[in-house]
Structures are given as structure tokens and as C-alpha cells.
């Protein structure tokens, strides 16, 4: 606990502190649980004069992101935040923000989608955003949530990238949980992410047209560019995290490996549930002699397929935990879908099985994790043909 001063911050407050440090010009958002306290804290900073930003009060999330698009197109450093139905309402504009290559940063406190109405945590909203062309990361400590905002602007505004970025935390499990966080001060932050307009903006002296019609002979080229920008985002993520470590002393990888050095089996997870798996590995699995490790996916778009496959290819069996469900898909959970296609294209034969768990805020307990580990271990010595074609629905009542 040496070093700089740590503050007890909830995930949401940790994000607000980072947004303040990034010295954003415009905050455009609409309140929704469990994101609300991010913007609440930010408006407090603005009211106190600690942050000189324009706060745009809008009547919906659709407008919140539309205003963010406008402000970013005018050259502002822009921040927004949302959850669940709010993300659903932003959906249309999310594609516009990424296609117009505007480096907006959005924090997402993930939450289940209605119906039935549920304000608790899962990854349905995050996964629904997965093909909108935004760079996507998910943290699993409040410190990481804080740092991700700074990293997000670094990646978003890089001239080779120019894509909006989502930094997600799990609603409640992180958004409302207080952990010690070492906040980055504005001066240090701005050295790392200097305020410089690196993208095309609306300027009366140099008029441009943004968001024009793209007829069939033009449209496709811009989509191809977006695909390339995502690839660049990966390079820039690697550079940015290296530089971040030099400056701030904390290292982030696209994928975090926990007790994987000698692991024979692994669970793959994202967000807070990865913490529960870590605790299970230390307190249960390893004590029983099971060589279990955790692969935590931090960067989701662009998807770090290479490194995950490199590790998975040496394992006996792998289980992927999804906290969302892709209804009617050939796979089950969306994270599993990405892992499977990565395995196919890289020729990885390890049996990989899917677990859907913790929907709508249902806690993922040690008992649940044990069930997942047992099912994964059962695939030892089997081939991928033996993998169940349906996900295991963990913790649901029959």
C-alpha cells in the first residue's frame, strides 16, 4: 500500500475522477442505474469549479450520444456514460459515432436488458454493443476502471485509430463497491493524453462535410477502413499500456492470466466474475490439487485471439463463462462465440465448453464455479466432438 495516496472510491466515482483528470470539454449523458453516479459526481465537479466542462442535459440516451457526436465533431474531448436500456437507445448513434471516427469515450456500468425489468448486473448490454465499431474494454478492479478512462482517450484519439471507446465495469459489483484507488492527477494525465485535436472537425475557416451520403460506390471503402482502424487499435493499445506502465507503474494486458503458468485447465471470464474465479482457484481448486487457471479477457474489441489461443492450445480443457446469452446462436454465449471462431481459424483442438451464468444480477457462487470446473475437467482426454452443443445454464432453476 506504499506510494501515492489512495482514496476509497466506488467504481463509478473512480471513473468520474479519471474523466476529471482527462479534462474533458463536454459531458453529455442521461441518468440510468447503475451508471448514474458517474455523471452525478462529474456534475458536482463542474458545479464546484473543479472541472471546466460543458454538461449537456438531454432528454434521452439517443440525444445524449447525438450531442456527444456533435461536440466531438466540433473538436471537443467528450465523455458519456450509460447502462442497459440506455445503451439500447443509443444503439443507432453508436454506429454513427464509430463510422464518423469520433474519439468519444463512454463508460458503461453493465446491466441486464429488459424484460422483465432488471437493474442488476450482467453483460447483455455490453455484448449488444460488440459489433458497433467501438473499441471495448472491461475492467475488473476500480483502479483498472479509473485507469481505463485515461487509456481510452489515448487509444481513441490516436491518429491511426480515431474510434470511440467503451470502458465497462460491472454494475453494482463494481459500480457501487468501494475499493482503494490511487487517482491520477490532471497534470500527469494530460502529459499522457495531451489535448490535441487529431481528427477532422467542423471549422468555419476550413469547411468540411461530415456524415454525408455514401452511395454503393463509396460506402464499402469506409467500412474497410474501420476494420483496419480496429487492427491499429490493438497496436496502439499495446503501445499505450507500455507507456502507461512507465508513467503510472501499473501494467495492463489485453488478457490477464491468473495462475496460468502451470495450469492444465482454465476458465475464461470477463469483469467481476473473474474475481470470483480467482478466489475459487486460490481457496478451492489449487488446494484440491486441480491445476486450474483463469484467462480474463480485458480487451474485447479488437478481440485478442492470438494470445488467448496460444495459451488455450496447451491446455487439457477450457470453460468459457458468459454473462449474456445470444439467443438462437450456434454457440450460446457471445464470448464463447469469439473464442470458438478463434480456435477454428488457429487450428486449436482443445475442448472448450460454455457456461452461461449470473444473468440479471444472480450471484455466481463458489458452488456455481465448482459445477463449471467439474464440467471442464470432465472433458479431459476428450476431443472437441465431445463438447456439449448447448451451453450449461449454471444457477438457473429447472
Amino acid at each position: 500500500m506504499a506510494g501515492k495516496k489512495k482514496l476509497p472510491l466506488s467504481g463509478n466515482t473512480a471513473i468520474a475522477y479519471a474523466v476529471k483528470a482527462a479534462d474533458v470539454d463536454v459531458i453529455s449523458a442521461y441518468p440510468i442505474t447503475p451508471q448514474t453516479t458517474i455523471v452525478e459526481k462529474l456534475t458536482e465537479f463542474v458545479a464546484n469549479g473543479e472541472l471546466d466542462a460543458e454538461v449537456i442535459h438531454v432528454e434521452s440516451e439517443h440525444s445524449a450520444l447525438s450531442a456527444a457526436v456533435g461536440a466531438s465533431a466540433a473538436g471537443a474531448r467528450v465523455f458519456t456514460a450509460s447502462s442497459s436500456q440506455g445503451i439500447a437507445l443509443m444503439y443507432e448513434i453508436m454506429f454513427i459515432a464509430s463510422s464518423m471516427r469520433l474519439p468519444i469515450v463512454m463508460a458503461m456500468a453493465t446491466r441486464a436488458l429488459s424484460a422483465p425489468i432488471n437493474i442488476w448486473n450482467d453483460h447483455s448490454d455490453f455484448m449488444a454493443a460488440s459489433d458497433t465499431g467501438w473499441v471495448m474494454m472491461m475492467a475488473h478492479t476500480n483502479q483498472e476502471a479509473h485507469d481505463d478512462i485515461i487509456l481510452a482517450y489515448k487509444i481513441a484519439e490516436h491518429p491511426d485509430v480515431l474510434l470511440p471507446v467503451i470502458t465497462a465495469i460491472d454494475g453494482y459489483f463494481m459500480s457501487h463497491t468501494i475499493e482503494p484507488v490511487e487517482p491520477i492527477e490532471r497534470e500527469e494525465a494530460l502529459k499522457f493524453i495531451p489535448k490535441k485535436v487529431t481528427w477532422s472537425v467542423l471549422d468555419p475557416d476550413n469547411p468540411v462535410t461530415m456524415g454525408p451520403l455514401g452511395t454503393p460506390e463509396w460506402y464499402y471503402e469506409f467500412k474497410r477502413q474501420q476494420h483496419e482502424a480496429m487492427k491499429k487499435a490493438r497496436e496502439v493499445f499495446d503501445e499505450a499500456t507500455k507507456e502507461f506502465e512507465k508513467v503510472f507503474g501499473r501494467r495492463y494486458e489485453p488478457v490477464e492470466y491468473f495462475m496460468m503458468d502451470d495450469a492444465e485447465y482454465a476458465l475464461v471470464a470477463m469483469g467481476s466474475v473473474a474475481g470470483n474465479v480467482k478466489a475459487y482457484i486460490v481457496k478451492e481448486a489449487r488446494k484440491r490439487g486441480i491445476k486450474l487457471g483463469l484467462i480474463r479477457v480485458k480487451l474485447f474489441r479488437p478481440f485478442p485471439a492470438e494470445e488467448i489461443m496460444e495459451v488455450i492450445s496447451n491446455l487439457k480443457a477450457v470453460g468459457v463463462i458468459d454473462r449474456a446469452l445470444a439467443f438462437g446462436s450456434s454457440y450460446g454465449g457471445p464470448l464463447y462465440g469469439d473464442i470458438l471462431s478463434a480456435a477454428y481459424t488457429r487450428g486449436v483442438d482443445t475442448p472448450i465448453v460454455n457456461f452461461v451464468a449470473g444473468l440479471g444480477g444472480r450471484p455466481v457462487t463458489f458452488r456455481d464455479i465448482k459445477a463449471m470446473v467439474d464440467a471442464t475437467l470432465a472433458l479431459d482426454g476428450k476431443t472437441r466432438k465431445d463438447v456439449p452443443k448447448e451451453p450449461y445454464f449454471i444457477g438457473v432453476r429447472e
Partner: protein
Amino acid sequence: MTAQLPGWKSLPPGAVITRPGSTVEYKTHDWRTLRPVIDQERCIRCRLCWLYCPEGTIIELDKPYTTKTGRKYTRTYEINYDYCKGCGICAQECPAKAIKMVEEVR
């Protein structure tokens, strides 16, 4: 034509058009099936067509005109047929029924 268009590597990101006023190169007249024709004799210079045209293709000219009955006007309204899409709004709105939509012959 496609062969001469630039590839994805050389286009500006985000489909930003950096040359102001380049829209004039995009002629929209070939969308037209009916062509509006102003009868300068009947036109009372009320300016409504100019106001309603969604394309801004009705041009107000400082061009004097005298009708057969001797009425003198200082202005004349004409149509820029490079961009007129033939929507017929002008004809619909004209209070003097001075605009006729006639079949386009190309």
C-alpha cells in the same frame, strides 16, 4: 467509372468531405421524370416556389420581364435543371398555377 475512384487506403477516415462546395459536382437531374416549366406570363413573382423548393434549384434573377398585357416585373424565377429532381412541390404550391409538370424527354 469505379476503376478511377480511390481505394480505402487513400480516402479520408470517416467519409469526411474536405473540399467545400463539392456537392455541385453531384448533379441530381437524372432523378427527374417530370420537369417543371414556369409560364412567365402567368407567374406573379410571389416567390413561393423559391421558398418551397427542397433543393434550392429555383433561382431568383434580376431579369426584367414584361407580360403581353404590359405588366412589368423586375425579377424572374427560373429553374436550374442540373439539380431539379422533379418533385413537383413548386407546381403544387404555386398560387397562380404558373408551373406545369411536363414529361421529361432525354
